[in-house]
């Protein structure tokens, strides 16, 4: 096994970029951190009721009639709301994809306003377990569950469809006729038309090519599987509504509730604290369950808690997508044309399907495919009666990478080139030449760390171990997660620094703590920027609760970008802190502020460094008021290109059983600047649980006869445990540089984008037969080998 190789920072700093524990490590290790289900124990809210919602037993059905009278009479039941009640049926049609999390949006401005296909507690069930019909508030969850079973529903069972190709065909059941008469999502203002990228002339490019390859790849319905099940408590007293939840967008949750229930924004208070894993789940607090829980609280005058069971938390997923790709190139490897087509399974509701299928690939085209003269992409998002899909870590990029890395590998083989050389010859970004420095760095480092030259062989032609075991190596690469210029849509990012008279600091840099480590990045950035006070991270308190009534607007954990966005603002706010302190000190030192400076907690005359007074004395001699600096600043929009990421995999395939075992993964991220090394490595290593899961074991399985999902549990939906994981070698690089003090980019999502394709390419290298769809289960391998 390889000994760890810590990265060397490009610029050595005192705190930023260091290996150290997280700021919340001890609290979390000791189990002291409270999540929403902990905070909302009945003992803390004595009058609290529990809500349970009816779920459709059918993949597609309509409620013809509903009678809740028996349920209402059950002792302990305090309120029943059904789809026939006016306060429910009058709610506007909505979407669970109001925003991608970057900005807070209103109902009118919601991202996918063309696809408002959801009713809150409607009468039209579009997938098995869809929340429809009725919701109950009772003294216990069991009573609420019992009450639901007493509600008489007359269902009109409708024909259903699970497969997107079938759903596009003639005679297929139409799921949302008003929006998509043939189940195909129409063009919209964000994603564009069906052919959403048409650069140069792709057909001409193929005609000029000397070699053309075509490939298919199929990405499936994986789920986020955060351990912390969705949960909220709503307390609607008089004219004011308070929500405790594990939504990771407090501000958007508030906007959603305010707009859907017609309440003034200041009458909705949303409090989010620690969240037990997010991974994009449900995205933005736009989930209808907030609304029916609120209405139950209004009706009963009591706080109402609604929490999903584990089974119900299988409520969101990655968009499955069938991709085909075609690439033409000259014999020297110069790509002349690329064409991609995707058919995505939106499931029952559109949500962020077109983000995955159109928005993300458009971004990729602008950067990674900038040097390809001719590119065409077309896409079809299709309604079916499956689990819908919102956001999942690396939305759209994971699906695209599965085909992107495929065509690169395939074309290289056909041309007789090393795929690393082929990649370097063609891919970079608009603001830089070829070969791209960042891509070169991640691929060359990966090549070295996996032992590419020694281990890569012709497909299927490597040595055989133990008569049946074959090994192979493969990789995939992708433009990295967001640089600052790609975050311009966020508008101002706000922070507040409070320096107390003892030089202890409170850093208000609100973001819902989902585990990403950005809280530690913020505190390290603050300690770095306030270094002149002679303080360290331990002197800084970072309030972890986001409360829309008292906090600044939260910077949302999306695009993996919070790790540096707030630190960039903190760096500038710290300069103002310093100026204020100099102004305070000037009077006591009888000098002009510009003649003074601060270092190691002392204010001194620049001319004579030894003299001066401590910053604490400046406070002590003065008014003892803390220095408070609040700053809002939009992200720097300077176009700095993008860095690259890559994963290299070594696998061993048992050709007698079809089992694929990953022996080693090398995870490479060009970070621009590593903000927090231990946290960044934790993301690199941690992302592989999801990446390998998607590649090998995780899959939602439906009963084709009924459309009912069969494995909404962690026994049959297989998540890797410690015993399943291979050796992972995290490689942090600093080659590209963005704008600003740090010039960093996000990395968290990008750690797993390339994993499934790297594994698939390695499997091909091992056995010489391609498997086009994930997860790569043993039966698929045996089938590919002609043994099943």
């Amino acid at each position, binding site marked *: *096994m390889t*000994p*760890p*190789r*810590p990265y060397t920072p490009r610029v050595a700093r005192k705190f930023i970029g260091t290996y150290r*524990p*997280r700021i*919340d*490590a*001890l*609290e*979390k*290790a*000791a*189990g002291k*951190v*409270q*999540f929403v*289900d*902990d905070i909302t*124990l009945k*003992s803390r809210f004595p009058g609290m009721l529990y809500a349970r919602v009816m779920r459709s037993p059918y993949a597609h059905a309509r409620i013809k009639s509903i009678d809740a009278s028996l349920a209402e009479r059950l002792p302990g039941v305090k309120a029943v709301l059904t789809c026939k009640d006016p306060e429910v049926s009058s709610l506007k049609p909505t979407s669970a994809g109001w925003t991608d999390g970057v900005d807070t949006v209103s109902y009118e401005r919601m991202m996918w306003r063309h696809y408002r296909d959801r009713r809150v507690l409607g009468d039209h069930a579009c997938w098995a377990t869809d929340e429809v019909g009725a919701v109950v508030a009772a003294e*216990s969850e*069991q009573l609420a569950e019992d009450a639901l079973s007493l509600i008489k529903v007359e269902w009109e069972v409708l024909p259903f469809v699970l497969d997107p190709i079938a759903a596009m065909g003639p005679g297929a059941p139409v799921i949302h006729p008003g929006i998509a008469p043939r189940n195909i999502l129409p063009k919209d203002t964000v994603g564009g038309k069906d052919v959403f990228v048409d650069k140069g002339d792709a057909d001409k490019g193929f005609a000029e090519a000397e070699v053309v390859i075509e490939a298919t790849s199929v990405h499936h319905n994986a789920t986020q*599987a*955060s*351990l*912390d*099940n969705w949960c909220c408590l709503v307390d609607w007293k008089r004219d004011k509504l308070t929500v405790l939840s594990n939504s990771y967008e407090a501000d958007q949750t508030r906007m959603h509730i305010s707009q859907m229930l017609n309440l003034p924004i200041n009458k909705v208070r949303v409090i989010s604290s*620690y969240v*037990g*894993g997010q*991974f994009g789940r449900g995205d933005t607090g736009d989930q209808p369950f907030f609304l029916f829980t609120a209405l139950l609280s209004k009706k009963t005058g009591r706080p109402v808690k609604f929490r999903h*069971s*584990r089974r119900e938390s299988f409520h969101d997923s990655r968009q499955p997508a069938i991709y085909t790709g075609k690439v033409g190139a000259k014999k020297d490897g110069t790509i002349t044309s690329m064409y991609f087509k995707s058919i995505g399974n939106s499931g029952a509701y559109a949500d962020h399907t077109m983000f995955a299928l159109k928005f993300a690939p458009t971004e990729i085209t602008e950067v990674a495919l900038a040097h390809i003269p001719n590119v065409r992409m077309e896409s079809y998002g299709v309604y079916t009666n499956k689990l819908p899909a919102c956001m999942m870590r690396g939305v759209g990029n994971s699906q695209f990478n599965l085909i992107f890395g495929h065509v690169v590998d395939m074309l290289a083989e056909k041309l007789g080139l090393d795929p690393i050389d082929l990649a370097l010859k063609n891919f970079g970004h608009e603001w830089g030449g070829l070969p791209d420095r960042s891509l070169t760095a991640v691929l060359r480092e990966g090549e070295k760390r996996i032992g590419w030259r020694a281990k890569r062989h012709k497909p299927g032609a490597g040595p055989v171990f133990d008569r049946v075991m074959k090994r192979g190596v493969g990789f995939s690469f992708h433009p990295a997660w967001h640089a600052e210029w790609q975050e311009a849509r966020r508008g101002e990012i706000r922070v507040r620094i409070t320096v107390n008279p003892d030089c202890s600091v409170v850093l208000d840099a609100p973001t819902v703590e989902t*585990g*990403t*480590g950005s809280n530690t990045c913020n505190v390290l950035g603050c300690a770095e920027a306030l270094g002149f006070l002679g303080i360290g991270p331990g002197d800084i308190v970072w309030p972890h609760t986001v409360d829309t009534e008292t906090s600044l607007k939260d910077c949302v954990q999306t695009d993996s970008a919070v790790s540096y966005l707030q630190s960039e603002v903190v760096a500038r706010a710290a300069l103002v802190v310093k100026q204020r302190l100099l102004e305070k000190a000037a009077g006591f030192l009888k000098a002009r502020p510009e003649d003074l400076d601060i270092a190691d907690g002392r204010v001194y005359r620049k001319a004579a460094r030894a003299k001066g007074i401590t910053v604490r004395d400046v406070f002590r001699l003065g008014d003892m008021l803390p220095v408070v600096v609040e700053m809002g600043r939009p992200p720097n929009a300077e176009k700095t290109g993008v860095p690259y990421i890559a994963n290299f995999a070594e696998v061993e395939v048992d050709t007698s059983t079809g089992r694929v075992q990953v022996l080693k993964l090398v995870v490479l991220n060009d970070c621009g600047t590593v903000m927090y090394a*231990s*946290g960044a*490595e*934790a*993301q*690199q*290593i*941690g992302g*592989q*649980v*999801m990446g390998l899961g998607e590649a090998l074991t995780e899959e939602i399985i439906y009963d084709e006869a009924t459309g009912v999902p069969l494995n909404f*549990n*962690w*026994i049959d939906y297989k*998540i890797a*445990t*410690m*015993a399943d*994981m291979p*050796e*992972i070698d*995290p490689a942090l690089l600093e080659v590209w540089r963005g704008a600003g003090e740090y010039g960093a980019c996000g990395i968290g999502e990008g750690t797993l984008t390339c994993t499934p394709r790297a594994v698939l390419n390695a499997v091909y290298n091992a056995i010489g037969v391609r498997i086009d769809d994930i997860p790569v289960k043993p039966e698929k391998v045996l089938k590919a080998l002609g043994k099943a």
Partner: protein
Amino acid sequence: MAIKSEKQARAEKKPPVKIKVNGRWHEFEPGRDIEPEMTLSYLLREKLGYTGLKVACDEGACGACTVLMDGKAVLSCMKLAVEAHGHEVLTIEGLPEDDPVIQAFAKQCEPGYGTALQCGFCTPGFVMAAKGLLNENPRPTTGEIKEGLSGNICRCGCYSGIARAVLHASHFSPCPGQSARQASRESAQKGGKQ
């Protein structure tokens, strides 16, 4: 349901269920405080407020609810509360903050392995599972740690850091009976990764 069993309990005058939790004996009156179908995880969280343990799957698949019963790691969502009668239960709240396992999880930042926690939701379950493992095997190898903790899911994926933390914790812990063979096995392991 609750009313019926309360009546039953009164009629039959069932003795209280006694469980020692974090060093203190608690008595639960059947029908009032405790029901036959109540899980230990429910009792500990909802009745006693020990929220360190988490209920994530409620069916024994993830390990987030792990506590110690008589020193052995158990899934509290898979134990009926009444099964703990007469037994000693330890939740993470019963551990001192300087417990070597807690400390090792908190401190892990060794390059190449990441941290031992990110969101922290699974962490109490992992800490208690690790306590149970070290009670049985004070000097586990990395392979034994991986096997021993394979009933727990960390979706943030901090398995490398966790394995490292448990390895370190086993070194901090006093282990009077350690043999020379164990010591050499462990030092051989120390250089290896994961």
